[in-house]
């Protein structure tokens, strides 16, 4: 287990996503200031659209699950579990992330 400081809170965009590169992995970070926790990290690769785009999707909730919608084909991925709501076969990795003293820290 290793902890990496990725960026600062000011680098994030409220209610939207950004992308980070950690150990050759693309990770989508979503900052939702009204939620607890306030920050979520999942893989940036869209397994259905097959491109690195999830950080550019729209966030919201479906049946009270926090989700991001793929900007390519609009499937929803759960920000906490990585499950795809429309397709059991596909999912994305989820990473442990926290916001401490204005720093975004990822645990790998």
């Amino acid at each position: 287990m290793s902890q990496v400081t990725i960026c600062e809170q000011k680098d994030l965009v409220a209610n939207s996503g950004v992308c980070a590169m950690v150990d050759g992995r693309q990770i989508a970070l979503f900052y939702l200031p009204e939620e607890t926790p306030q920050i979520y990290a999942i893989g940036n690769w869209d397994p259905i659209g097959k491109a690195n785009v999830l950080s550019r999707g729209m966030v919201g909730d479906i049946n009270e699950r926090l989700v991001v919608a793929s900007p390519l084909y609009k499937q929803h991925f759960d920000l906490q579990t990585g499950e795809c709501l429309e397709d059991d076969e596909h999912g994305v990795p989820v990473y442990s992330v926290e916001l401490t003293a204005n720093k975004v820290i990822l645990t790998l």
Partner: protein
Amino acid sequence: MLKVVVVGNGMVGHHYVEQLTASSVEAHITVIGGETRPAYDRVHLSEYFAGRTPEDLALTTREHYVEIGVDAHFGDPVAKIDRDSKTVITENGRSFAYDKLVLATGSYPFVPPVPGNDQDPCVVYRTIDDLGNIKAQADNAKVGVVVGGGLLGLEAANAVQNLGLQTHVVEFAPGLMGVQLDAGGSGMLRRKIEALGVKVHTSKATEVIESTEGADSRLLMKFADGGSLATDMIVFSAGIRPYDQLARDADIKVGERGGIEVDYHCKTSDSDIFAIGECALFGGRIFGLVAPGYRMAEAAVSQLTNDKQSFQGADMSTKLKLLGVDVGSIGDAHGQEEGSIAYTFSDERIDVYKRLIVSADGKKLLGAVLVGDCSDYDTLLQYYLNGIDLPADPETLILPYNAGEAPALGAAALPATATICSCHNVTKGDIVDAMDAGFYSLGDIKGETKASTGCGGCAALLKNIVDDQLETRGLEVDKSICEHFAYTRQELFHLIKVGSIKTFDELLEKHGKGRGCDICKPAAGSILASLWNDYVLDEKHVGLQDTNDTFLANMQKNGTYSVVPRVAGGEITPDKLIVLGEVAKKYNLYTKITGGQRIDLFGARVQHLPAIWKELVEAGFETGHAYGKALRTVKSCVGSTWCRYGVQDSVAMALYIENRYKGLRAPHKFKSAVSGCTRECAEAQSKDFGVIATENGWNLFVGGNGGMKPRHAELFATDLDDETLIKYIDRFLMFYVRTADRLQRTSVWMSNLEGGLEYLQQVVIEDSLGIAAELDAQMDNIVGTYQCEWKTTIENPERMKRFEQFVNADAEDDQIVFVQERGQPRPATEEERIKLLAETA
């Protein structure tokens, strides 16, 4: 196989072919049409002069007949029927054998036997070829006379007026439309059309038509009363005569005054020969309307199946617009039934006339006349056709609402047999059946039953029935936009506007629940933009935008973007073309010309977007909003500046329109085009709104669409000056923005709009809702606050952060791989990508 020969390819003959091919009958069908073109819509013939082409009026094509296995021949009329050998022989000597023969030969225009009626400037009004003649004669004419003040005569007068001629109507009888209207109604109609600039001459018998070539006008009509009228052309449209010569020559029984006699099965005196439509005489009557013709065609087809239907005559009630005046006539308009009672309402202030003919006991409606306002027509027709008991005070049915509550006829009161749509013969029962089968939305029911897809006159009644049925079934159609808002887009628009709501969070707090999603967020973002026109990437709105709107470019399948600068009207300088080429080369972009006359640059990585825009903006380009639910392009032809045929400067108008509406956020994308003449090279009639130049100004079309569900735009207004054109487009667009559903194009919106085109005209042109000033002000505000989103973005370093590929590294997305094809880059396929990445690793 049964050989069926159909002689005549008018609307009714074509309907017969359609019905027969759709039936269970196995038949080899031969169609022989006397005209050179396949069937077309004769009812809307006068629209030819308002910009409709023969292709628009066509009901079918030669190719379609080939596809459905029909052997069709045009331009070689049948000359003879040989009943002994059961063959027909054409003028060119070709012969066709039949087992069953169907005569759908129609009728020809009656030309009064007046000396001088055979001169060149004397024409008739019946076929598309006739229209060509009329246009040719009108080219050098100032004055045109229509002989005939009936339904067809007034249609012809409309055509002549559309050609810009001073128009006269000469009628032998004392009043206009004597068959359908009583004296009062006829008088009101005359007042109204004279107010439109058409001069009406009644009780005039023409004795001679003299040639006055060389004088100011070409012809002089002399009347029996000693009067005369100078004119340049005459259109005879004084009624029709059945074309029954073929039957006469073959000794098939015809009526004393013409018409091929038929029985309930539309069979003639020869049981292998049928006659349908205007050539047929049933019960001593010719039925000169298209709906009864269709019923005859259906009855004749059914004789070849087990389901033998009969033709029982037809109701000749009619509702139409003549020269823009609403006219309706139901049943016994003249009150000929003994003891009948008449109620009349006339208001010369607004030029409305209404008359009811009621049975002696006051219980049943026998007839009605409506001029200037046909809003009561549907209700009255249902009372008449279904013999429904009238209310105790029948006059309330035609009196203005403020004189007492008009008892609207509830949809529930109609029997299942009540005909709702007479164009397609759809009963209330058919609609109920469709709903039993699970079709609940108006659009689905129209698609399933065809109801209200002809003239559209029954749209309001159809909706009442559907609503009533939904209520009876205890069904409420859930129109919620998503789980976060229990409202339609239209309702959300209203809430945002009335509550002056400025952000999504505020909207969610006041009217929604949860956190929102990718359905409601962009919808709310679009409404906020339509109303307040803030910068779409402002902090409070950025989370509402789809990736395309967020990055002001269109995401492609590999996660890169395409960039489309605005090229208004498709006009671009050589210098700007060079800039596009240079930018594309520098950033390794694939270039393609779009259907909207601009250039799309594909394959831009997200981190390169700001630099690309910067170069484009510096060269004078702005965003083309290809990513937005907003105006895309206004396509144009070169117009009168270059083209030998152009009559207006279509490029200048396209530029003006594109620059006016660029950036306007709407429920969906919308497109436009401007053509410089009726050749329509810009394809304006396939656009959300299209403009076509005329000699006198511009014709405006609305609600067209290409793509997956093509829809022909509808002619909205004609011969507009620049200012009026823009005013109407402003209001049309703003009304659409306000009332359409999420992701509903104007074409679908118009199909679902209760009252259709006519309602839209009332709102936009006559301001029937009293909102025109508000729509105008709202559009002015949007136009006045336009900003190029690319420019605003590149000027703001904070915003630029969003365009970094990674927040923590200066690197590229290595999964984006291109290969070369035809001299340009394209995204690698998955296989290619894996292979290429393995090679580099």
